[in-house]
């Protein structure tokens, strides 16, 4: 998994969630996305599912997979790298 993909995922998060005033460099690759980290919730997660599918053709099929995928930017990038078409 490349650093370039990790940067792309950070930008995808910013764009999909329309986070104002935040740059990719402001997001830590291993920080939790939910709770104490970026503070995302299930509504955000579904928005990210759609964005990942649109940008990379990657499907998050169920909630259990989503829980693993959305642990951090790095886990999102790893899932994309493994599953993109």
């Amino acid at each position, binding site marked *: 998994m490349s650093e370039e993909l990790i940067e792309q995922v950070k930008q995808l998060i910013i764009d999909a969630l329309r986070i104002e005033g935040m740059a990719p460099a402001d997001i830590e690759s291993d920080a939790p996305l939910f709770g104490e980290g970026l503070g995302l919730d299930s509504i955000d997660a579904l*928005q990210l599912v*759609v964005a990942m599918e649109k940008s990379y053709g990657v499907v998050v099929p169920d909630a259990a997979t989503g829980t693993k995928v959305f642990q951090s930017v790095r886990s999102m990038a790893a899932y994309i790298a493994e599953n993109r078409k």
Partner: protein
Amino acid sequence: MICVMFPGQPLTQENNLPIDEDFRDIALLTRRMTGLDLESFSWGEKILSRQVALQVYGTAISLIQRQRLQSSGVKPAIIAEHSMGIYPALAACGSLADSDALTLTMRVGNSLASMAGGVEYSLGCVIGLPATTVLSVAENNGAYVANRNTSRHLLLAGERHSIESAMAESLSLGAFSVRTFPCDAPLHTPLIESIAPQLAGIVGDYCFAEPTVPLMEHIEQEFLTASDIPDFLVQELCLPVNWEETYLALRRAGITAWHEAGCGDSLKKYNRWIASEQQ
């Protein structure tokens, strides 16, 4: 054109609230009018339910946020409301005094709490399934759609066992997320009609001035007049909230900037989702 949106009851109290002059003013008013202490989130002498506390808390935080928006020069062209956000919205459009918005919230909340009578009610949030599927799930399990927030974010209300089985069915059908929350009464469902006369009696104790800023309601997306308000306040508790249609109607009305006055930012997130589907 700016819209200030007032969200419904929060699920929990906020962390790290800034204690400034606006907070202190509304906290004092809240304690005086309802007995709820905002900082400690506790009742004074008269102890009401946790849900009523959250409802009053939600109205109070919305009033504080409205004050802050005003101080920063935000002038809404339209005010919008979601569920129990109607009470601070009425204050924001000049139809009701802040003190009355707080007592009305408390009295309506307490009336809803009295409905339970041994029955346990719940709310269930389903994210990720199409609305038609969630409607079927609700019907199958004897629950009701209480909020249609977006095409993929719906809230069900009903008796606890109905909601729990509806959430299990939703998950089995591929819902991305389901959550169940306790509540005093099945808000925004026809079950509330059983206490409609009681609610109308409470609403009848208040005088509503003509809104000085247009106030769009969440059922038919009409602008409320003073004479509409009493009936709407009862009706809205018996019918589902349709935020998706409200957002689209606000956009058609020319709204281009959005401010959320209340706990959290759920309405902004719903808007983001709905807007993304329009692209």
